[in-house]
């Protein structure tokens, strides 16, 4: 599926200017702190107001010229942010299946095994380590089989050995569900193992630096300006 966006947004001092098209592939976003990586993901999720066009999974999500914005709850997203936002009164399992009409136990069990949270399913969030909570939130994002996965440093709290296993698990899941993944990471190993495409952000601009399939180098920011 072809996905495409061309968006601008202004948030405080940051001016976001981003354009890209991509298929159902693994995209790694890097850049310095404050370059707008998280903002880009939040704009794609619809959590921040953006102008421009956004087409995803064959659907229009944003078309400013027509005054159209699809709200986040209708976008069928899978998101993971620095704040895992697990609800403290629900068990891990209930957190993951929150909002689902019925529970696909087979799928849930498999995901839990792949992302190493099987033993945690009946625990409450306060009984989880930061790393465990992060994995639970990742399972929650994937469980609903979203049309896109937007994950902001999903392995930041993981020990190196776990991180390595999670990488390959995530790659397997992405290939199986055939969904686009946009992942923010500072880890060069993440990029090396996972990335089909690499986006680098600088001062709010998205530069599509390395296109591994075509070897083309271009600057999305300049094309827009």
């Amino acid at each position: 599926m072809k996905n495409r966006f061309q968006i601008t947004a202004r948030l405080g001092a940051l001016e976001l200017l981003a354009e890209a098209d991509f298929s159902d592939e693994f995209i790694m976003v890097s850049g310095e702190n404050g370059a707008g990586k998280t903002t880009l993901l939040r704009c794609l999720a619809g959590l921040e107001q953006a102008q421009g066009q956004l087409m995803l999974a064959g659907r229009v999500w944003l078309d400013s010229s027509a005054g159209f914005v699809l709200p986040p709850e209708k976008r069928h997203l899978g998101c993971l942010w620095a704040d895992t936002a697990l609800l403290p009164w629900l068990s891990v399992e209930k957190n993951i299946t929150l909002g689902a009409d019925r529970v696909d136990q087979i799928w849930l069990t498999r995901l839990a095994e792949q992302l190493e949270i099987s033993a945690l399913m009946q625990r409450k969030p306060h009984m989880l380590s930061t790393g465990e909570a992060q994995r639970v939130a990742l399972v929650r994002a994937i469980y609903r089989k979203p049309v896109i996965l937007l994950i902001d440093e999903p392995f930041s709290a993981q020990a190196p050995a776990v991180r390595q296993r999670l990488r390959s698990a995530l790659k397997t899941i992405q290939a199986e569900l055939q969904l686009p993944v946009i992942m923010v990471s500072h880890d060069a190993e993440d990029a090396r193992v996972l990335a089909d495409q690499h986006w680098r952000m600088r001062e709010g601009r998205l530069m599509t630096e390395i296109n591994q399939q075509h070897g083309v180098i271009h600057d999305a920011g300049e094309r827009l300006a």
Partner: protein
Amino acid sequence: MLESLVISLQLALVTTIILLLLALPLAYLLAFKTFTGRTMLEVVVALPLVLPPTVLGYFVLLMIAPDSTLGRAWSSVFDHSLAFSFSGMVFASVLYSLPFAVQPMQQALRAIPRSWLEMASTQGLSLSQTLLQVLLPAARGGVLVAAALSFAHTMGEFGVVLMVGGSIPGETRVASIALFELVEMQQHSDAWLLALILMAVSFVMLSLVYTVNRQGLNFGAGK
């Protein structure tokens, strides 16, 4: 005496239930939405806090009088008038205790982390799912405080219920009015007992409020 106490408890219970249902959408609007007339709504909700109860009672009486629109509509459906009835007192009590229900809920909703609301939307929860599965459990402390305060405040009404209810024995004579009349009739031992009971109810309710506030049953703030 016992009769008046039962009426008071019934009034407080019915009022509290109606208030919880009514205050939740109001608190939701005030906590999360910006709209024209928002300040106006907040002022109207808070008005009973500072208004003399007799003023509120007087306006309610005008609103529900047998020749008013509301009064006529009511007596055409039910075969009694709204003024000087239990239902009329419920109507007045709901208005009178509205801020005590809305404000704790509004505060509890405001304390919910934004990330939880964002999670609810990116996980595709509908408005009712968000309300029932995220907002209400997160703000349950506020709901409990709202219920306790509404109940206690309704038990403690005097001016409004006297104005609207008219102190009809066995119908609209609530405990606080009965106490006044007992004192006037110099029945001191009954007055003393009734006053003690009313004091105890308020004490228990406020203890509940302060316990909830200290233990932070609202998950939102910290945890």
